[in-house]
């Protein structure tokens, strides 16, 4: 069976763990996120006719003090950048993370997840920034860990890109 390591990255509190939890049945405690800085989950899906196992590394969020451990991203076949739609600054964090990953790991498939779509009326993300990213070729999904909107689709799409 094909396996792919997928990292879920983003600023603190953007809903990475909630997204993963929405997508998979977690086994390990969330306490790992605060102790080791990562929690690993698994989801098997089908791309075409081939089953693919996504090993999801939910990496603790980045802030000014605590940068993401790039060691955890090493070996990833793709990654999600998660942004909190209600906090404009998390988009900048995502952009910074993407630059770092590209620099240190290389150009691998990734998705930008604009999370908390259920609170879209409170979004602060500048539309022109989103459009600029789309023009730059970023794949963007508007997701909601609360309602599950577009979550499955985002994972499916990333899997497809990684296998291709």
């Amino acid at each position, binding site marked *: 069976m094909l396996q792919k*390591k997928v990292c879920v990255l983003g600023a603190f509190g953007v809903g990475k763990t909630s997204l993963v939890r929405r997508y998979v049945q977690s*086994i*390990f405690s969330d306490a790992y996120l605060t102790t080791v*800085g990562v929690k690993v989950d698994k989801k098997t899906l089908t791309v075409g006719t081939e089953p693919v196992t996504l090993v999801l590394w939910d990496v603790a969020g980045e802030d000014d003090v605590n940068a993401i*451990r790039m060691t955890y991203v*090493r*070996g990833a076949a793709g990654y999600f950048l998660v942004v909190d739609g209600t906090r404009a600054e998390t988009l900048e964090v995502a952009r910074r993370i993407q630059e770092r990953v590209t620099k240190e790991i290389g150009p691998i498939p990734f998705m930008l997840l604009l999370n908390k779509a259920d609170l879209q009326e409170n979004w602060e993300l500048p539309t022109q920034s989103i459009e600029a990213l789309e023009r730059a070729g970023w794949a963007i999904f508007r997701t909601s860990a609360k309602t599950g909107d577009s979550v499955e689709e985002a994972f499916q799409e990333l899997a497809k890109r990684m296998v291709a």
Partner: protein
Amino acid sequence: MPGLSLAARDASSTAETPPEAARARQLAALLLEVARCVDKDLASVLPSRLDGDPRLEAVRSVLLEQDRAAFDRLQQKVNDPQQLAEAISAVLARAFDLAGSRDEQLATVLAPTMERATQASIRRDPNVLVGILYPLMGPAISKSIAETLDGTLHGLNQAFKHSFSWRGLKWRLEAYRSGSTFADVVLKHTVVFRVEHVFLIHRKTGLLLEHVAAPQAASQDPHMVSGMLTAIQDFVRDSFSPEKGSSGGGIDSLRLGELLLWCEEGPSAFLAAVIRGNPPETFHTVLRGTLARIHEELRGPLDEFNGDSATLGDLVARLEGCLQQQEQPQEKRISPWLWALPLALVLALASWMVLRTVEAYRVEAYVQELRGQPGVVVTGAERRDGKWHVSGLRDPLAADPAELLANSNLGPERVVGHWEPYQALNPAIVVRRIRSTLNPPPDVALLIDGKSNTIRALGNAPQHWVEKARALAAALPAGSPRIDLSALKDIQDPTFIRLRNAIQAHIISFDSGAPRPGPGQEAALDAVASELGELIRVARGLGFSVRVMITGHADSTGKETSNLSLSAARAEVVRSMLRARGIAPDLLSVRSAGALEPLRPGASEQEQAINRSVTFTVSTSD
């Protein structure tokens, strides 16, 4: 080489014939050759060569001209060592790589040469090889020493842990018998382990390459476990490794209760074994060997691993060799029935010993109680013929040993007494003796004064009892307590005294020479009988009896012997007459005084008449 010779000949013939003709001849010859190759039968009918036809030669020359030039260059390169070395050096690395990835032949072929080269290098200058190996030897030696020390410490720990236990003593005995060291025996018994899971994990991605588990071993999803293990390894490496990005410095060993995690790292993958119990340090070698073989055989696929496990082939068989276990040797079980007999014997022995101890304790208590009794002297107590024999001296008035035995919880059949009678001088026994012999009046109390070894009698007692007590005291053996009767008050009953005096005042008169009382004496005899009867009753009421001595008298006339007979007859007659009046004859005794005890000493008729009489004397007795 026929081609070369042909080419040379063609070149020489070209000079003799026009070029067109030579080429045509060459072409014709080639066509003939082709025809012969296609159909073997033509070889027999067609000539082998069209000698002298220059056209064929020309054709051949045209066709082979470029090849010939290339061949010439190649031959020049082969013949020139410098050019040949340059050509080989350009492809040598790739050739080694290909040959190495294809099979083990290259390694096998190169090994002797490498060994010889290494030996030559060492002979020439050992420092070169030392310099090469130094960066590797340091960590390798450190790791080896650490593992050896771990093994030694593990053995020492186990040895210390079990040194002073019962099991430790058994193992010491086993070590002594087998000639092994104690630590070896301890390790043999304590190295009990079971490898429950083995994970082969891709180092770069943390993806699970393969997982094998012992039967019934529980675990979370192996993919997630391998991911978390990698994360933790990375975390530890990042946090504590001195060099950022270093590939070493992860977790080698981690223990959680009975579970032990051992990791062995290789260049592309690492093995993680989850072990329950205490594995021997040599199990590291098993893991390391397995990992080395996997890297050796799958180096390329591991390096290029992109998540597709199928490229690695079947790894399960390789990993299953790591699923080792060592169980504690089952001790030979003994049938419960074989335990029953010795157990019953032990229980019986214990019960017997308990019963014997209890019995001995009770006999001791019984003997102590006997020793505390006045008038009892225990001289021996021993167990003989299944019974206890208690022997000694016992005053008949002392406590009865049989009664004491009944109160001692000892069966009368278990204790045999051997008692010799003796007279005890213990004051308590003497008091008992006085009581049983003298039957003291109720008013009399007998007190023991231990200090002066004296028995004091207090209260009121009749004279006759006092006299008897005094007689008994005088008859006691030397060393007996002194009996003090001085505090007793002598009491006399007035009725008794009156009756006694009245009886003793009676004088029964007789005529001269007559043995029977004279006329008118019947009334006096009646009075004596009546008073004597009352006296007997009064004396009995006072606790004693009386006796009456009847003394016969005679006057001084006549012969002395006759007077004695006559006085005896007079006393007997009076006794008969009193018996006839109801007096018990055993209370009456007679005595003959003759003329020897005259009531009146004179010889007048009146005095003689008084001396012809019978008198009464009252005495008391028990």
